[in-house]
């Protein structure tokens, strides 16, 4: 139930983001100075900003950037982190020590500060945000996977795979990874939200996407000036961000329940 509700919310967001141009919201930067700061109405469901741009159009176009940013950064770092964490957990010893010290180093920095630093080195813009988030967020997956692998290693079916002489590559990638995926997938759902918010925060601070490109963070940041007179500019996009966040969180919850049941419901 939670799972499908979440899938519904996220699904609608993704479909709208992909289909923006076909349903008539073509140009997020079209200005109409005669129609600035209009309150929500039938013609402009989310109202307009100080330059008369339709906010709904901007939010929908922003969704493309934000959703793809969230999904790509999350799943690329999931793959990298899971791979390294699985190696560390399986082999132990020096591999483990070296990898986990790198993870500790990355994690010990305040998340947003490290991303800010990297993003400002790479340069302001979407690329900087991608690099910054990727460099930081694989570490959590690595640590999570390593812990799961340490437990998994001791299970009899992993020992059986070893005693039956399967190649190590096969044991790790074919036998272990599917069992490690569950925790990672569940975690990835909250990570997507976190990464989207990070992009919004970076843009807000002027390091992520730069205006006039429509992106959730920049829209909200620009509306701040008018918060007392034109509340809709910041508030409505903010609610969209929250809704999408709740959607991913629901998927995460639903997955946790469901996978827990299916996989370990053996007894």
């Amino acid at each position, binding site marked *: 139930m939670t799972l499908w509700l979440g899938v519904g919310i996220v699904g609608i967001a993704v479909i709208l983001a992909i289909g923006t141009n076909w349903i008539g919201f073509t140009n997020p930067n079209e200005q109409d100075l005669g129609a600035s700061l209009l309150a929500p109405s039938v013609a402009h469901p989310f109202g307009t900003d100080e330059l008369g741009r339709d906010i709904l159009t901007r939010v929908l176009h922003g969704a493309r950037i934000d959703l793809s940013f969230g999904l790509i950064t999350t799943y690329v770092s999931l793959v990298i982190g899971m791979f390294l964490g699985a190696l560390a957990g399986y082999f132990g010893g020096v591999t483990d020590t070296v990898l986990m010290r790198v993870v500790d180093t990355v994690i010990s920095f305040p998340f947003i500060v490290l991303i800010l630093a990297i993003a400002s080195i790479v340069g302001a813009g979407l690329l900087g945000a991608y690099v910054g988030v990727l460099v930081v967020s694989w570490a959590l997956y690595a640590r999570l996977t390593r812990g799961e692998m340490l437990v998994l290693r001791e299970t009899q079916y992993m020992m*059986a795979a*070893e005693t039956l002489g399967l190649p190590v590559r096969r044991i790790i990638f074919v036998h272990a990874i599917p069992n490690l995926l569950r925790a990672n997938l569940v975690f990835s759902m909250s990570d997507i939200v976190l990464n989207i918010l990070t992009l919004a925060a970076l843009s807000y601070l002027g390091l992520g996407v730069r205006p006039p490109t429509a992106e959730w963070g920049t829209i909200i940041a620009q509306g701040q000036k008018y918060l007392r007179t034109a509340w809709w500019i910041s508030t409505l996009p903010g609610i969209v961000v929250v809704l999408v966040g709740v959607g991913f969180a629901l998927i995460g919850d639903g997955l946790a329940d469901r996978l827990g049941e299916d996989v370990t419901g053996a007894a």
Partner: protein
Amino acid sequence: MRKQSEAMEALLLKVDDLTIGFADRRGFLLAANRVSFSVPKDHTLGMVGESGCGKSVTLRSLLGLVPYPGEVIAGSIMWMGRDLRGVSKKKLEQIRGKDISMIFQDPTSCLNPVFSVGDQITEMLRLKLYMSRQKAYARAVELLDRVGIPSPKLRLTDYPHQLSGGMRQRVMIAIAIASQPKLLLADEPTTALDVTIQDQILSLLAEIREETGMSMILVSHDVGVVAQNSDEVAVMYAGYLVERGRAQELLHRPRHPYTQGLLKAIPKIDQVGEGGPLVPIRGQPPNLADLPQGCPFQPRCRFMNEGCSTVSMELNRQEPEHGSACPFVDEGGMR
């Protein structure tokens, strides 16, 4: 002379003075101490002992899989004339599962929950026997049928959690015998099962052994299970082999005080109401970090005397058919 060499050829596995140590702050704890035994073709060796006496570690060492921080310190493990201790990892990986297979204690967790039964059996066939997908599939059906799983074709697509414990143990056996190994290591294969299922599994193993001539090392802490299913029995205590002999001989005329104690502690079906109460072995199982000099069993032994601390713990080589590590006690009591 010739007879001896023939006997040597028929030996699958010959373990000599196998010593396994676990690194500890003060040195090594010995989980197996100069253990020697051999397994000829078509032969079942039973291994008995309390929990923690080194049975499982000894088994795993045969496959080169002593868990960290343990390692084989000394001795040799000759597999068909080749010492497995000197063999490369790659080669060892090929021997595992192909020549020597293993089944485990806990059927609830010995199958990977995310793969179907069919996937897990065909994996072995395809990796170890290089079968094609279709051939492996057909063979998997045969194997499931062989281990007594009804409607095997339908069960192939089942996942482990859909099967009962006994069924899962049967699947594990099917996986283990898929590559037609020469030796099957059975690590407490029936401990986690109901008594009725235990019996079915053991007779299944016996049938398979009879058909294929496969040898087996059957490890258990249940003397009854081992007695009924083995040709030869080895008794382990605190990492030492304390007695070894043909099953019937050892069970009826146990020589080592520990074996005698074990047997006295078990009720016998044909003596119900006859003898007195069961006699437990007094004291606690040994702590490997704190063993006495000489014989490790002395604190619990009825026959303890001042010579115990100088016992070498070698099986009596005068009687290779039935050796005991205790020089003082025989089947009748003190020598």
